[in-house]
């Protein structure tokens, strides 16, 4: 539909003239054109634009920012080195980390506790961008529900950020540094390719 040039209408005058009732009805109908067209399509043509959620789901973009995933190294250990950069950058202050010493001399430091309170998270993805290790990425999981509001239910610890079945089901989302991690990172359940040579 061609866009009409906008016009200043004096509403008091317009309301008084009967002729304008007709034209305003026409305007309303014109505004509903898209809705009406889809109604006809859905009812007569059986082409639906809505889906039967949650039985049916739409595919989301690979850059979707959903629930976080903690990745791991080829040997299965967490990639996170507890540098606290994600905790530092998080505008919602919903990440809590506690560090511990590990015996592997190439690693030295790892989180003993890593918790994201998803009920406070605004899914901005800053944490993922800040991570120097590609240890934290996001998934395409978007339907986050809990039966109560307390932090116990939506505060995901290391276990939930690495082992939920949903991670494999939805796949990885926002992962801005995928091109250049120094050490490969793997998703939970992702097959690790055999070493070459």
């Amino acid at each position, binding site marked *: 539909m061609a866009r009409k040039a906008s016009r200043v209408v004096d509403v008091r005058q317009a309301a008084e003239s009967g002729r304008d009732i007709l034209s305003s009805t026409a305007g309303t109908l014109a505004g509903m054109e898209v809705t009406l067209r889809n109604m006809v399509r859905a009812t007569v043509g059986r082409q639906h634009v809505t889906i039967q959620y949650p039985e049916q789901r739409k595919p989301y973009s690979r850059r979707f920012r959903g629930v976080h995933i903690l990745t791991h190294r080829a040997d299965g250990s967490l990639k996170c*080195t*507890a*540098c*606290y*950069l994600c905790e*530092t950058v998080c505008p919602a*202050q919903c990440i809590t980390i506690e*560090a*511990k*010493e590990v015996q592997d*001399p190439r690693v*030295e*430091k790892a989180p003993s506790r890593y918790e994201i309170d998803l009920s406070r998270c605004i899914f901005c993805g800053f944490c993922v961008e800040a991570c*120097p*290790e590609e240890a934290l990425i996001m998934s395409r999981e978007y339907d986050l529900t809990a039966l109560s509001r307390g932090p116990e239910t939506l505060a995901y610890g290391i276990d939930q950020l690495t082992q939920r079945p949903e991670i494999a089901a939805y796949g990885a989302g926002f992962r801005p540094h995928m091109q250049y991690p*120094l050490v490969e990172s793997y998703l939970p359940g992702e097959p690790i390719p055999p070493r070459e040579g």
Partner: protein
Amino acid sequence: MPIVTIDGRQVEVEQGTSVIQAADRLGVEIPRFCYHPDLRPEGNCRMCLVDVEGFPKPVVACATPVVDGMVVRTPHESPVASKAVNGVLEFLLVNHPLDCPICDQAGECSLQDFYMHPDYGQHQSHVDPVEKVHKRKRVSLGPRIVLDQERCVMCSRCVRFSEEVSGYAELQFVHRGNHVELTAFEDRALEDPYAGNLADVCPVGALTSRDFRFKRRVWHLSHADSVCAGCSTGCNVRIDHFGGRIERVVPRRNPGVNRSWICDEGRLSFRALVAVPRLMYPRQGATELDWSEAVALSHDSLRAASAAQGRPLAALASASATNESLWLFRQYVLAAFPLHRLAFRLEREIAEVSQRQDNLLRRLDKHPNTMGALHLGFDGGEGLDGLLALAESGAIEGLLMLYYPPLVGEESKETRERITRLLHLVPASVVLTTHELPYLTAAKLLLPVATWSEEEGTYTNYQGLTQHADKAVPSRGAVRPAVEVLGDLWHCATAARRQTRPEEIFREIADSVPVFRDLTYASLESRSATAYPPEGRMHYGQEGFAGR
């Protein structure tokens, strides 16, 4: 005296001052690794190169004395010096590991700060990370210090500290070129009782504190300027805390008191605050009271036990209390008990106050405010023994005590036994204290008060220098600062209200006690001491995160 021009600004300095000192006085920042104001200049890192008019090449600011009429341009102004410093930095980073995410120094690391500096930092590295020379990481140097050889920039500050300052001389460089390593002989544990300072003098993360290891990233910490309460030296310190918990204590530079150092015992004295459970609520035997009840009961029982029967009240205050608490303590005793015996020492030897324990900082007197107590008219002569003798003869029946357990070391067994005996002998006893101490349980009333780091106040050190300690962390439970509790007791005695803000009390002290005349909180010297190098000087804010 020579006048020198640095980046267009002139300053007059004493003969023999180095360029870097003159620049520091002007507030012109010159990058440096090996220079430290309390160590002999060595000039080995070449980071402080400046351009001096008439000199053919850049020279090191830390080892070049100023001469009259010298015109110096720092890397901020001079492209020559900037290029030279940039080159030095590139060399220092050739074999430097990519450790910042797990390095405890990150956030207060000179190397990071200098690299990020727009005037002389940043370059494209010519070295592939896989070609870097590797050295040993996570080398344990005893209970205080962890060494990472890869992160060392060979500035030798630590070597000079252990040779010149503590005298233990336990660190040295070995090998040559790319392979130079800092090491202790056979990696033996450092015996130095001042080893904690090594982590502070190290400008990078090569020497880090084992106690603070991986506790917190430094940019999350909030700071409070304080004075160590571990002994009568009164070293200036900064308390770094997060979420109401003290994470570490570092020295502040005060050339007249502690220079840039503190002893390890003082550094870890904050651990003593949590080693024993805290007294959380006012208590009579096993019953918890609320404050108004407890204060009224304390005052009434002491009155009943002393004034009514014509016996003096025994008043014993620990010399670990602040001047403000001691002053109110004395005011209360004077106002409410015409007959009293005022003492402050638990042991008799006042002479200890300025006796050295070693030839650097530590002193035998483990009370931070013995001098203050003396100045405020506490008669030390009688002490615990005198009161005990009086109690045994039945001459005293009421005891008011303000007691802080020592932060360094323990109260001697003998003293603990004498305190217990005194509390058993005296029928009415009120003890203001901080912890659940077994030797105090015989007290009839226990009132919980704030410790060092939880209250503001001043301490007077062995030199007679009054220094200010700020409040760092909040108290838990029903704990209140001693000044407030003593203010309430005073209210019971006189029905008048009084000011209990430490600053106001100090003004009162200054007005009444000659030694404190003309002193105010604002004028106390310790308030201008800062940690060296001044943390947050370059890019980062001074305060920790808001809302934490």
